[in-house]
């Protein structure tokens, strides 16, 4: 049973008339790799800055290890922040940057030296220890910033878009690297990102922020397979949305065709709704699927591992996306303009109120 490290209770933040955080409850567990996911302006940085102590919450509290730290100054919190801009000290070398936090803790010189050397080794920057930030590449700076926050061994490490400034390939490598380091140090990480793929790859749990509200919190699998709102469904991965209307135990699409789903009670009869299905759940020409629809191929996009097909249908003004594995695509050559029928099982249909 893992313990709760951080409890956020009904926290709010207003900047004048702007409501950046609208009232959030969240528990972060010990040793967890937690991702905060949200679009630009959703309040991710604001939430992190409240945890680090740079913004005072308008209301609510932050408890760390059972103690209320809402009013503790940033320099007295066992919490460290890796800034979105890295915020490295330009007049200090990499090693001096990393040593700074340890000097603030008044550790003895030899220990500081040893710990700096150790962490430089972990981030593989030992040869560049005496360079100043402007003599380092973006990726190297990012690692110095990480080491600087990490070397203090905080209870909680906050990372604001740690990989945001890196190119795609480096990001992929660093995602795994971050996970390795987190595991090795046994420190709780809260990582802010607006890249949903990154969140899925790295995190033990993900929270989705939208306009200052917490939409959903759960494991990557839960979030991907069981989104609780239309926004969450569209934000994570690709989703096909079909406008429908509930009629008894069935959903009626725009063109009158029926769509089957496991319907709960929360959707009233005769109300408008949206049915959703992931592109990879759709398959070609399967006979015994619960749902079936026919459309015209309007675009084909080859992605190496898979083939994406766009289908114009009368069910929706947007094209329906289908993702075929390379094997399935081999078996059935498609061309633009062709009419095809696709199907999916009822259990893969998600329904949201409109």
């Amino acid at each position, binding site marked *: 049973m893992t313990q709760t490290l951080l409890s956020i209770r009904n926290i709010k933040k207003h900047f004048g008339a702007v409501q950046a955080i609208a009232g959030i409850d969240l528990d972060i567990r010990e040793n967890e790799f937690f991702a905060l996911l949200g679009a630009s302006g959703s309040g991710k940085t604001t939430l992190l800055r409240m945890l680090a*102590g740079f913004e005072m919450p308008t209301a609510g509290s932050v408890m760390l290890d059972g103690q209320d730290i809402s009013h503790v100054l940033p320099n007295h919190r066992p919490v*460290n*922040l890796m*800034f979105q801009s890295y*915020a490295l000290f*330009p*007049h200090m070398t990499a090693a001096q940057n990393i040593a*700074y936090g340890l000097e603030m803790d008044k550790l003895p010189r030899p220990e500081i030296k040893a710990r700096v050397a150790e962490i430089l080794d972990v981030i593989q920057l030992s040869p560049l220890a005496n*360079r100043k930030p402007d003599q380092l590449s973006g990726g190297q700076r990012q690692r110095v910033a990480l080491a600087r926050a990490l070397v203090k061994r905080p209870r909680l490490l906050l990372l604001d878009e740690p990989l945001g400034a890196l190119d795609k390939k480096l990001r992929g490598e660093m995602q795994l690297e971050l996970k390795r380091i987190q595991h090795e140090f046994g420190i709780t990480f809260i990582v802010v990102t607006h890249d949903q793929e990154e969140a899925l790859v790295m995190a033990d749990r993900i929270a989705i922020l939208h306009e200052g509200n917490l939409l959903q919190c759960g494991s990557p699998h839960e979030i991907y397979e069981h989104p609780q709102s239309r926004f969450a469904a569209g934000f994570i991965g690709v989703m096909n949305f079909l406008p429908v209307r509930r009629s008894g135990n069935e959903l009626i699409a725009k063109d009158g065709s029926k769509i089957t789903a496991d319907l709960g009670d929360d959707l009233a009869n005769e109300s408008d709704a949206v049915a959703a299905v992931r592109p990879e759940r759709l398959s070609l020409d399967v006979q015994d699927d619960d749902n079936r629809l026919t459309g015209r191929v309007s675009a084909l996009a080859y992605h190496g591992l898979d083939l994406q097909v766009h289908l114009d249908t009368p069910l929706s003004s947007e094209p329906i996306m289908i993702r075929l594995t390379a094997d399935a695509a081999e078996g059935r050559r498609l061309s633009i303009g062709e009419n095809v029928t696709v199907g999916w099982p009822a259990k893969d249909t998600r329904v949201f109120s409109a």
Partner: protein
Amino acid sequence: MTDRKSFYLMTPALAWLTGLMVIPCLLILALAFFRRGTYGGIEYTFTLENIGLVFDPLYASIFLKSASIAGLSALIAVIVGYAAAYAIAAAPAKRQPILLFFAVLPFWSNYLVRTYAWIVLLNREGLIASIVHSLGYEGELPRMLYTESAVVIGLVYNYLPFVILACYAPLSRLNPEIAEASRDLGGSGWTTFRRVTLPMTAPGIATGFVFVFVLSIGNFVTPALLGGGQFQMIGNLVYAQFLTANDWPFGAALSMFLIAIMMGLLTLQTFATERASGARQEDT
């Protein structure tokens, strides 16, 4: 467009600067090595006497005095100016330009008038004295005008806007997250200021100091008006050689000395700035 066309555009101005700045300056450089004529003229024989005279103990006390007044003025101006620049940079972004504008405004009004204002304030029958007396103080006030302090106040007053401008530039460019990073790593407000903000803005302080120092040490107006002619700065000495003592070669040597001080300080400052910004490649 070619460099030839740009050359035509630059020629008139460069000719002007050459004829009326470069050549006259080279001229006094040369003058410094000629002998003074018996009746004040110039005798065209080479000598190092003037240069030697600059370092003569006779003038050492004047130099020390000028340097200490200029240094004190520069120090005070830098402390006050930095504090003001810091406060302006800490103000809401919307209000900063207007604050800066009003801080610099006096700099562009007449130097003599600004200096004269202090005579009015510090005079024996001046405003400060009248206020103190009207408050009921009967005794004799210490002399305020025609003192070293008056000269220092006048210099600080006149050059303060320049220092504010010089310090504001690096302060306003600071990324606030860097100071926050220091707080986050456990630094107190004071430690953050001392170890992060101050070193990062040191170039502005150095520029401010050098300029106030050089302009003060070469000044002759303020010592004449607020010092009552009792103190000689290097500027007064130069003035005297040209207008009263009629020893132009020595005056020329003195002004070369002034330029040398300025260049030396500026070089030092550039060097320090480069060090601070980490422009040098460190060997690993």
